[in-house]
């Protein structure tokens, strides 16, 4: 690539752009960096910090996180696997439900479809915590308080209400493809599995990621439904750490971010455009 001639004007332009980008990335990255460094603090106390950063570093906090639960007070390992269980199950179940809902709303015409559309739209505008009391009572009735399944149940069951994004994606797949498949002898389920899903990979991945991220980081609901310390999720656990365990908090936060990052890098290559290229002329 040939370098463009650097006129003073262009140089000024570059300098401005890069300064701006630098400042912006600092603003975003600094808290992350600080958290990571804080989690590596040797003493684990805020009062040992020199200025912004800890004076001495070690991996001890991370080791403690899993090995030393402070007499059962902070069982991070248990919390971590609780969270993983809830998030994975909610993501799988929620994704299936929301995709099916969106597909039905996108491709089928039936009585009451419009009513459902409007109702869900209105319901979606209420903030989730408005129903918390109701959720609590329902879960009590079902005997699910203090069970992780109550969370999975809630997360998976509420996601189909926000099916609009997925519906929009399905809408964008040419109807002729579905019709062609039906004429080729496919049942509705086969059309969904063999035509719709393969063409919706980016959408499925996006849905999975969001369905995973919500339970992974939610505090409100687990705090409401999980009373027993051993049932907590990481978010609730960290929330309840006293200030003296600052490094533990930091390390816990850093560690919990790792699966999300891994998941993201595994799945992101599927989020590409142009999957339907070449199918229909338009």
């Amino acid at each position, binding site marked *: 690539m040939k370098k463009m001639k650097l006129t003073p004007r262009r140089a000024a332009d570059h300098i401005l752009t890069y300064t701006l980008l630098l400042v912006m990335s600092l603003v975003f990255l600094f808290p992350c960096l600080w958290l990571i460094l804080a989690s590596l603090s040797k003493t684990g106390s805020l009062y040992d910090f020199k200025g912004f950063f800890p004076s001495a570093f070690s991996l001890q906090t991370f080791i403690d996180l899993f090995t030393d639960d402070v007499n059962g007070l902070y069982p991070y390992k248990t919390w971590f696997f609780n969270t993983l269980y809830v998030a994975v199950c909610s993501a799988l179940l929620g994704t299936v439900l929301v995709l099916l809902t969106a597909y039905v709303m996108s491709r089928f015409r039936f009585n009451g479809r*419009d009513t459902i559309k409007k109702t869900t739209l209105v319901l979606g505008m209420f903030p989730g915590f408005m129903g918390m009391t109701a959720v609590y009572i329902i879960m009590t009735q079902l005997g699910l308080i203090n069970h992780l399944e109550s969370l999975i149940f809630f997360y998976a069951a509420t996601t189909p209400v926000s099916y609009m994004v997925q519906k929009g994606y399905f809408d964008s797949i*040419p109807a*002729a*493809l579905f*019709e*062609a*498949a*039906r*004429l*080729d*002898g*496919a*049942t509705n389920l*086969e059309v969904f599995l*063999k*035509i719709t899903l*393969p*063409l919706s990979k980016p959408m499925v991945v996006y849905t999975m990621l969001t369905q995973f991220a919500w339970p992974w980081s939610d505090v409100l609901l687990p705090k409401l439904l999980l009373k027993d310390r051993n049932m907590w999720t990481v978010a609730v656990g960290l929330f309840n750490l006293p200030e003296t365990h600052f490094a533990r908090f930091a390390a816990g936060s850093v560690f919990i971010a790792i699966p999300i990052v891994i998941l993201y890098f595994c799945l992101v290559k599927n989020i590409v455009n142009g*999957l*339907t*290229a*070449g*199918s*229909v*002329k*338009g």
Partner: protein
Amino acid sequence: MATLRFRNIKKVYPHSEGKKKSGKGEKQSGLQVTDQGVVAVQSFDLDIADKEFIVLVGPSGCGKSTTLRMVAGLEEITEGELYIDDKLVNEVAPKDRDIAMVFQSYALYPHMTVYENMAFPLKLQKMSKEEIDKKVREAAAILDITEYLDRKPKALSGGQRQRVAIGRAIVRSPKALLMDEPLSNLDAKLRNQMRSEIIKLRQKIDSTFIYVTHDQTEAMTLGDRIVIMKDGFIQQIGTPQEVFDHPSNLFVAGFIGMPQMNFFQARLTEESGKYFVSVEDCKVELSPEKEKNLAARGVTSQDITLGVRPSHMVLSDQGSNSLSATVDVSEMMGSEVHFHVTVRDADVVVIAPTMDPNGNHIKTFGIGDKLHLTFNGNVCHVFDRDGKNLEF
């Protein structure tokens, strides 16, 4: 292999829930609008014989696709009965009708290779791998797409995609093959080429064809019989020759044939069993055959619209008993010349050969020149003021 019977089929598209009464384009389209909705097709009666090639033709919005989609089962039939091989199929799901369709937009599965696209319907039938392979390769050979079998649709040209779409349709030997304007996305040259390939294809496979187009050339060249539609109604059903020679009404007369048939405001007079048409100073007696038809229907003297095809107009030397015309444009086509002329205030096209059989050039005319025209009694089409052919 199948026969199809349409019995008084009707399709009403319900009004959309937003109650858009003055929906755009609906008024011009001339479709009947009832309280239930827009009537896209009505009184559709047709018997299709086994292995027949039927072409549905008509202007945009006349209900061709709707009819085709009702056969496929993609659109519900509002009223009437549709039989495939004497079995009532109104309520039969598309997948159980054993009908294949080629869409205007190709509708290839973009995530599958050409091979997988063509194998898809067979896989759904739980056919064995070897059998699928055999059939796909057979179909690919017929359509000359064997070398593209491993490609994805996006790596194909429009013409190749259309072949694949046809391949996917014929691979499972369906009872009937439906095609909805399959060539309209192709350029003129490719369209001509594909058209002759469809004619060849037809000889190779045993299937009933229903082909939709708005192009009358395609209709004339492909169809065993043509169904001409307008505003949801069938206008005429017949072989290409029949509809060309005996259009049942003004619409068909104008729609079939290029350049369009010329129309004159004329007078039909009946004089003791003989029929004459007179336009301006030109009076011509109809052929005995036409006179017989008119007499059989008891047609009396009346004002009519006279139709004469451009190639049936004759340049005349004599000034009497002829139409005088002024040349507006003359188009040299090689073996013939198209004169666009004005007769009184009507635009008329005349096709004249450039040479007589002895190879002598025939006198040509330039813009503004005057000439005289006549026509013979056996090429006149007489329509009453409502546009109906009086011979029918």
